């Protein structure tokens, strides 16, 4: 239990730092999806299955889609660099 929680928290914090410092916006949006996914794992471990499902569907799925489409429209969609 403690190992799974530690790994999930580590992945979450590392991805959150990556969202803030990565120069490429596409990578930042992908990292924000990773944060949501790790958070969903933590919610499931905290015995909150409803919240975990919501976070996985909205945070990792819909929100990432929305932000990626926004990037495309804003002209920030650059995969190189």
């Amino acid at each position: 239990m403690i190992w799974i929680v530690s790994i999930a928290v580590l992945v979450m914090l590392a991805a959150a730092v990556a969202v803030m410092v990565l120069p490429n916006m596409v990578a930042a949006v992908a990292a924000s999806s990773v944060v949501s996914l790790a958070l969903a794992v933590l919610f499931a471990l905290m015995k909150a299955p409803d919240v975990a499902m919501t976070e996985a569907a909205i945070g990792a799925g819909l929100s990432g889609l929305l932000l990626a489409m926004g990037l495309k429209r804003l002209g920030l969609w650059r995969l190189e660099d």
Partner: protein
Amino acid sequence: MRNVSGLLFAGGLAFLLLVLASQLPYGHTAMTLGGAILAHAPGEVHTANIVAAVLLAYRGIDTLGELSILFTAAAGVGLILGHSSLRSNNVQQSEQAESGFITTRAVDLLMPLLIVVGFYIIFYGHVTPGGGFQGGVILAIAFFLPALVRPGNPIDHGLITLLEGLAGGGFILVGLWALWYDKPFLQPIFDSFLGTGPLGSLWSAGTLPLLYLAVGLKVGAELAGLLVTVVDVPDLSNENSDSNAVNKK
């Protein structure tokens, strides 16, 4: 200067939250309201999923308010992005090519499965984890994906608006139905034919499954509308924007 004050502010928040966390008894939270709900919900609302009971029965008006917040957000997005100056070069939008063969076929195969999963999660929301919010998101994605891979035939905005209005009205009507039985607004009703099954079965919990269906359709229509509005915006990259604008390097 701004960086220093920002860092100080973030440090202050960290200190505040640390103090709060050290005061909280981890794992032994005093739950007066939660304990009362846990004790009474199985007998009063007959839901196996107590979170659903809190959302729709004990805090039903909050959920109605939450739906109206979501509606306001969607209306705001439509107002901001529906402006005519963003629609001027809409021609290039319809010329966008279809996605590749594999993507289109995969979406065609996925869409019915996603719809089934979404409705399953909505209908079993009061028995198992899940419910209107989660299922509604899956429905929104299911109806949006075909429009994403085939920009030629987008989703009908009028249909989305109609579905949204019907679902919102349905939620309020089910709430008003309780008044017929001399009960407060949005209290679950246990009729002779509705929701009288044993705890944990699909046909239990009174009008709660109807409310969850309304929530699911409303959330699905709202979020699909949001996605469609955002995807309809033309390309805003610097090449075709105003000439006086300061280019970002």
